[in-house]
């Protein structure tokens, strides 16, 4: 009568062994278990009333569940006693059906109440854990908005996404499972043990002898199978990696005649996977039969010894029946408690990752800010600016420049020279280490970050569009824009034409990953977005290789239109842009090494001149 454990919702077992008796692989260990658990409980504090109800329900349902086999045993005893009586006295069998019905109604009551409270407890607990899950996700998303860019530039996006999905999921599922299990398992173990002893201490000894034997055997098997399981996981990782690599580069494999080599390597790993796989599966699969075998041994022992006791009149048949039921129920809470430590460890490890993220230093709070001027002329002055992504490794050192309103600034330099650093500083994505950046005479570090950012329109090469319609994307900087304004902006950005060819025109849904529009067209949309936002200053990133030549021409024309009459900073690749710029900032290895106009810089015969000549002088 073993209770079948239902898998928690959404649980996805890994490709692990089938035994199901362990957490799969080596559980991740949290660094500070106590502290993390304390923190998790602080999230549960608002629900303490309901948690108390959960605990009470769990206690009631478990106690009633423990009582029922004994009561059912009484029913059997009632029958058996009547039978024995009739045998001994040689009279007709006379079963007292009123007694049986009485016991029966009691039993139905026990079963129903136990089931009701068990469900009540799950109902409450699932609500609590889901609300905590919501809370975690909500806090993470808010945290994303408050973290400095420095954090994002140093961490993989996938890592943060997995906090939102996997880590939070692990916490909620494990909480749901372990919180109630801790209560029910302890009561079950104590309660069942008590009932067993009260029935017969002799039988209890037999039943308990079974436990250490299976524990020892299981530990031996787990140790063995762990080795093969780890090997299997390693081989699995290897084979997935190989498949991924080969299929992602199929054209290369083909043109370099690498198919046979690839297949050979594959077969090698595949055999490794097979050899460790079947052993791992077999060994971990041994667990169930061995457990069953040992519990059957206990069953035989109880049957024999119980029989002997019964003949001697020391135990009733109903009690033997109840005892067997208890014995069957006993293994579950024990394996649960054995597993709970692992579950809690995994919970704490996941929670620790989430908390570590939530505890990251945020952008410095803004106090005593100066209001930004209403009308911005667009004068940008950098005075003695020093900056480094690592504070002890400055890359821009004591740089000063003066950009007059409506001037255009070209930022040039080879790939990887750190041209986006200027963008990061102007937009205050990063704060400078020393010196000042002044817009119309006001130090940007004294303004609100949002105010500074509002002054710039930005078109990056790494175009970002969100999942939504084209119209929504264009209106991203001006959410109250009318359809007319949106179309006007699209027209100005030369995007209207291609938008109209899309299935739903301006209402076509695009997403980050959607392939329905090309990279160049995406850039046109971001230009339209900047046109509509109508900021007094601009930051532009000219298109390079991912865009075809004709679209590039369109982008160029749109950018020219956009930057007309505005102070603009252009990460430039086109010679004409560079040559027409009022100021050229030449970057090399993160630092700004030269500044001036095209003519001035050529005359200087420095790094710029070298760059220029290597590109356009005849080879």
């Amino acid at each position: 009568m073993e209770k079948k454990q239902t898998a928690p919702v959404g649980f996805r077992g890994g490709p692990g062994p089938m035994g199901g008796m362990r957490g799969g692989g080596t559980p991740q260990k949290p660094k500070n278990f106590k502290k993390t658990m304390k923190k998790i409980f602080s999230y549960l504090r608002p629900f303490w009333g309901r948690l108390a109800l959960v605990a009470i329900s769990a206690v009631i349902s478990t106690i009633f569940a423990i009582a029922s086999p004994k009561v059912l045993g009484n029913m059997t005893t009632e029958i058996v006693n009547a039978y024995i009586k009739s045998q001994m006295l040689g009279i007709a069998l006379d079963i007292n059906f009123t007694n049986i019905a009485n016991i029966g109604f009691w039993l139905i009551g026990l079963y129903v109440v136990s089931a009701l409270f068990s469900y009540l407890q799950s109902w409450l607990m699932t609500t609590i854990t889901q609300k905590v899950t919501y809370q975690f996700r909500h806090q993470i998303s808010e945290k994303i908005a408050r973290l400095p860019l420095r954090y994002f530039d140093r961490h993989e996006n996938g890592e943060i996404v997995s906090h939102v999905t996997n880590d939070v999921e692990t916490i909620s599922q494990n909480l749901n499972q372990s919180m109630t299990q801790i209560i029910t398992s302890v009561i079950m173990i104590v309660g069942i043990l008590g009932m067993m002893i009260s029935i017969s201490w002799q039988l209890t000894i037999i039943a308990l002898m079974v436990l250490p034997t299976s524990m020892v055997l299981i530990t031996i098997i787990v140790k063995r199978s762990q080795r093969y399981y780890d090997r299997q996981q390693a081989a699995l990782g290897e084979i997935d990696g190989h498949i991924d690599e080969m299929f992602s580069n199929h054209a290369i494999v083909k043109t370099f005649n690498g198919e046979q080599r690839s297949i050979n390597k594959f077969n090698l790993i595949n055999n490794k996977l097979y050899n460790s796989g079947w052993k791992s599966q077999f060994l971990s699969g041994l667990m169930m039969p061995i457990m069953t075998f040992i519990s059957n041994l206990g069953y035989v022992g109880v049957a024999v010894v119980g029989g002997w006791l019964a003949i001697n009149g020391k135990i009733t048949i109903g009690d033997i029946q109840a005892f067997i039921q208890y014995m069957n129920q006993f293994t579950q809470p024990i394996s649960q408690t054995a597993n709970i430590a692992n579950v809690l460890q995994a919970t704490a490890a996941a929670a620790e990752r989430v908390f570590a993220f939530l505890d990251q230093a945020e952008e410095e709070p803004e106090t005593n800010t100066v209001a930004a001027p209403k009308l911005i002329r667009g004068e940008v002055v950098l005075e003695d600016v020093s900056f480094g992504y690592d504070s002890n490794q400055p890359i821009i050192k004591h740089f000063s420049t003066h950009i007059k309103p409506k001037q255009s600034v070209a930022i040039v330099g080879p790939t990887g020279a750190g041209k986006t650093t200027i963008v990061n500083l102007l937009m205050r994505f990063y704060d400078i280490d020393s010196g000042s950046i002044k817009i119309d005479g006001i130090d940007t570090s004294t303004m609100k970050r949002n105010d500074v950012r509002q002054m710039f329109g930005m078109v990056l090469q790494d175009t970002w569009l969100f999942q939504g319609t084209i119209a929504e994307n264009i209106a991203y900087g001006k959410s109250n824009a009318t359809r007319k304004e949106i179309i006007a902006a699209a027209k100005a950005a030369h995007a209207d034409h291609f938008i109209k060819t899309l299935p739903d025109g301006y209402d076509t849904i695009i997403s980050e990953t959607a392939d329905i529009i090309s990279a160049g067209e995406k850039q046109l949309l971001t230009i339209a977005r900047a046109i509509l936002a109508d900021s007094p200053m601009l930051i532009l990133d000219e298109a390079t290789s991912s865009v075809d030549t004709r679209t590039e021409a369109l982008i160029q024309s749109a950018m020219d239109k956009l930057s007309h009459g505005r102070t603009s900073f252009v990460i430039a690749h086109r010679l004409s842009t560079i040559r027409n710029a009022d100021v050229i900032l030449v970057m090399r290895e993160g630092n700004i090494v030269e500044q001036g106009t095209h003519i001035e810089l050529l005359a200087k015969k420095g790094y710029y001149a070298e760059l220029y000549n290597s590109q356009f002088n005849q080879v």
Partner: protein
Amino acid sequence: MKNLAKYFKPYTVWLIGLIILVWGQAYTNLTLPDYMSKIVNVIITSKSSKDIAPIWNNGLQMLLLTLFGGLCAMAIGFVAAKISTGYVRKLREAIFIKIERFSLNEFNSYSSSSLITRATNDMQQIQTVIAMLLRMAFLAPFMGVGSIIKAHQLSPSMSWIVYAAIGALVALIIMLFFVVIPKFTIIQKLVDKLSLQTREMLTGVRVIRAYNNDDRQQAKFNQTNLESTRLNIFVNRVMMLMQPAMTLIMGLASMAVVWYGAYMIKSHNLQVGNLLALMQYVMQTIMAFLMISIVFIMVPRAAVSLRRVSEILGTEPSISDPISPVHLAKEIRGTVEFHDVDFGYKGSKQQVLSHISFTAEPGQTTAIIGGTGSGKSTVLNLIPRLYDVTGGSITIDGIDVQQINQAELRQHIGYVPQKASLFSGTVGTNIGYGKPKASDKDLSKAASIAQASEFINGLPKKLDNPIAQAGNNVSGGQKQRLSIARALAKQPEIYLFDDSFSALDFKTDAALRKALNKELSKATFIVVAQRISTIMQAEKIIVLDDGKIVGIGNHHDLIRTSKVYKEIAESQLSAVELGED
């Protein structure tokens, strides 16, 4: 899905063995309760405490039976592990070899990410389900039917309890199935949406902040979060019904056995000892039906994976070697000729290339320029037969490429793709990928022409420096240079560069072109480019527009004769550099 069954054939004997073992296990489980009732009958009929011998006797038999059952179960585990992993090994191998033979046509129609999933996740899914099925699919019916028969034998008039319990159980499962399963898909979608929106917040962090739109993103995420919370609460509440309801059903069923059994005993239709056995059979039947329902949940999942795998095995590569191939000379000249070539992707009506004819001569650079979608890359892909032409022909030194074995043809071609991709290994294995037997000297030479020597020598272990998967530990420009070196190390006669220089800065680009001209004066170069400056010196420039050739000539001719070329050039260079004045 017939093509999947044949991989089971080597395991026929194993399968028969498995069924025998499962029968043994089921026999044990079904017979054990009999002994229990015998013991009980001994107890209640015994007149004195000396009648202990039959109990010992029964106990010993039970012990042996338990041992037999345990051994059967372990052997089942062994056989199931052997079959499931062995079958999947064969299947995985078959599918991998099949996919390696696919041409780009098949890769396009399936997409490489789908092929990867099929060879990895689907395989794992299949293995898990087969292992589970082998343990359950035979045992559950044996146990279910066996228990019902046994219960019927003990007391035919009490079978209704078994049926009622099964009925309740099945009703419960079906209800859950219909209420909850459709919601699972929605939950999965919401999880995807949550991660997508998080990713959006992260990739767009600069734009979001630039436009001060944090609140809007938050609101959007919050809505999805709420939606997901609500649905999860609902689904969990329904799912949580399962356990209390199951316990209730089992409790009531065992109670019914005893209660109703009392009446049966009274009317002498049941022996007292059989009461306990009957209870066991009811439980075993319920367990068996639970197992069956798990099988029913698992099978459709595996069926999806199986169908996806079967689809692959049923697909034949569209490009294969000729039956009687023509062999190329050991060293070829390398003249590549397109004769009125047409091309369209499989299943697409649109023509990507039409009436393309040109000759690329050895010792010369033939450049191809044109807008996106004009078919530039496709022209290159046709030469090593990554795709086959749909009209016309391509010849190398006068021999149709379709008459040459693919491997032989490709030996003479060095291909550098637009997106440089490297393999895990070392710098050396990557450069030598097309020529595994190349000496270090050859590799260094190739690296030096590709302008990669400087950075390779800066690496701690130089040529032996490890390259991570997808080349993630080197920069884009370095990857591109290694990818070029890889083509050079092969020492082919024909080089195909698909816009391979754009990841390089202008300086490296220029130095590389200079080195290529100097070192490989006899080779045929076919170059797709975006930058006019890269191809200005080419002997022949082909201007493509919408899959058609709209101009052939050198820079100076085209600037006068081709409107498309002029347009492109003007957007990139000034009049002085165009040499117009």
